[in-house]
């Protein structure tokens, strides 16, 4: 797998408060990388930096071999899904079609792609429904359809199942796997749900107090972690 993101010596501070320190991370094309860590460890900040919402305080970030230049062009190749999706005050169809419309895609293609995306997330037939009347699980799946409808190369997921019931968690995990397998999308998921990481990730990075203490293949992380703190966190011995 070739590199998509290369992050070197990256740090981030909000005023005096340091959030991320000396992050070195390579993200490979087509993988599912889980960034795990307790609340407040910097997972969301890292995802926001990867989506260019935040500018790192120091370090470098290369995307697809190039230094970051025109942010909007790069941002159009990715998508970020928040823990609680922000739903536009419009129909399900108009919500899902949004990313296609801002790219100037023709109506016929929009209709087909929206239909495909809704089919993947199991919401076919709800196109005309007001999006804000959907249940929490449906709203998250609709937001997922909206995030994948324009075939982004990278999908950034910030605790995508944190507020969902087990049935919807299973559906979202199935969608994540399907999107990666069928479309080759690179997926970076920030979560503190360790069983979920076991089920869906290829590689895992453990972030504690803003420091990426270990990045490795899932099997190695769970069977032979290199860092004592990784082992403690995975076993649930680290209480926050």
């Amino acid at each position: 797998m070739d590199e998509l993101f290369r992050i070197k010596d990256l740090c981030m501070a909000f005023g005096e408060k340091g959030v991320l320190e000396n992050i070195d991370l390579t993200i490979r094309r087509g993988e599912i990388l889980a960034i795990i860590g307790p609340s407040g460890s910097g997972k969301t900040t890292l995802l926001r930096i990867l989506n260019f919402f935040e500018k790192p305080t120091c370090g470098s970030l290369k995307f697809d071999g190039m230094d970051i230049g025109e942010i909007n062009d790069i941002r159009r190749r990715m998508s970020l899904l928040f823990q609680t999706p922000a739903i536009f005050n419009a129909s399900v169809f108009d919500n899902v079609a949004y990313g296609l419309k801002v790219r100037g895609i023709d109506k016929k293609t929009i209709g087909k792609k929206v239909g495909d995306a809704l089919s993947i997330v199991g919401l076919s037939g709800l196109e005309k429904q007001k999006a804000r009347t959907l249940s929490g699980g449906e709203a998250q799946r609709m937001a997922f359809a909206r995030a994948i409808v324009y075939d982004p190369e990278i999908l950034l997921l910030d605790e995508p199942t944190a507020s969902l019931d087990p049935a919807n968690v299973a559906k979202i995990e199935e969608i994540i796997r399907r999107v990666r397998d069928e479309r080759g999308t690179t997926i970076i998921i920030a979560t503190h749900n360790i069983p979920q990481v076991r089920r869906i990730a290829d590689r895992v990075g453990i972030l504690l107090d803003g420091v990426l203490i270990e990045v490795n293949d899932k099997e190695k992380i769970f069977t032979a972690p290199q860092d004592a703190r990784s082992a403690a966190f995975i076993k649930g011995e680290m209480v926050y």
Partner: protein
Amino acid sequence: MSSADFLFQGITKAFELIVSLNPYILSITGVSIKVSGTATILATLTAIPLAFILAFLHFRGKQALIALVNTGMGLPPVFVGLFLWTMLVPAGPMGFLRMIFTQEAMIVAQYILITPIITGVSLAAIKAVPKPVIETVYTLGGDQKDAVITTLKEARFGIITAILAGLGRALAEVGAILIVGGNIARTGSIGGIGEGLSETRTLTTAITSETSKAEISTAIALGIILISLVLTVNILANFFQRRD
């Protein structure tokens, strides 16, 4: 005649004037709608872009401009009328415009009064759009233009309410337009009432003059029309607020 009979007769005659489409009453209503409607359109064209500039852009003097808008929301109409009058009278600095005692002067007065209201209420509606909604626009590949359009859509009911609030204020306003408009009607009574067709006489200014002449039924007829218009505007505003 008892006070109840007096009032009853006044209301009966007022309804007769309305139902018979009395030209004096109609012309006053027409001037009111024209002046307030034009002022609202012009104020909207200024206020909405201004609200977006205040919401989205960062520039020096922004807080001072917001403070000015907030102050303008409570501007006393008679002060605006007096200020404009001193500007527009023939001896004033803008007297060459020959606008004093015209509908145009009344439109300017109402424009000054309602632009801050529409701006302030629209700004509140725009700021009420959750930040994650705007961030989602960017995560989906949109740019600042898309963010502005999406915000406009999200805040649309609040913005419509702001426009209707401005229109309601304009229709009910009396102090400023009385000073710069002069409450003028053409000479010559029509149908035994009033002083001919309205030039700068609106529903509010006509009510004051008709009441001072003890033409109670005419004043009541004008009052019924004014209340109906303002009520319609408020019902519409309430409808859009509930949809938001």
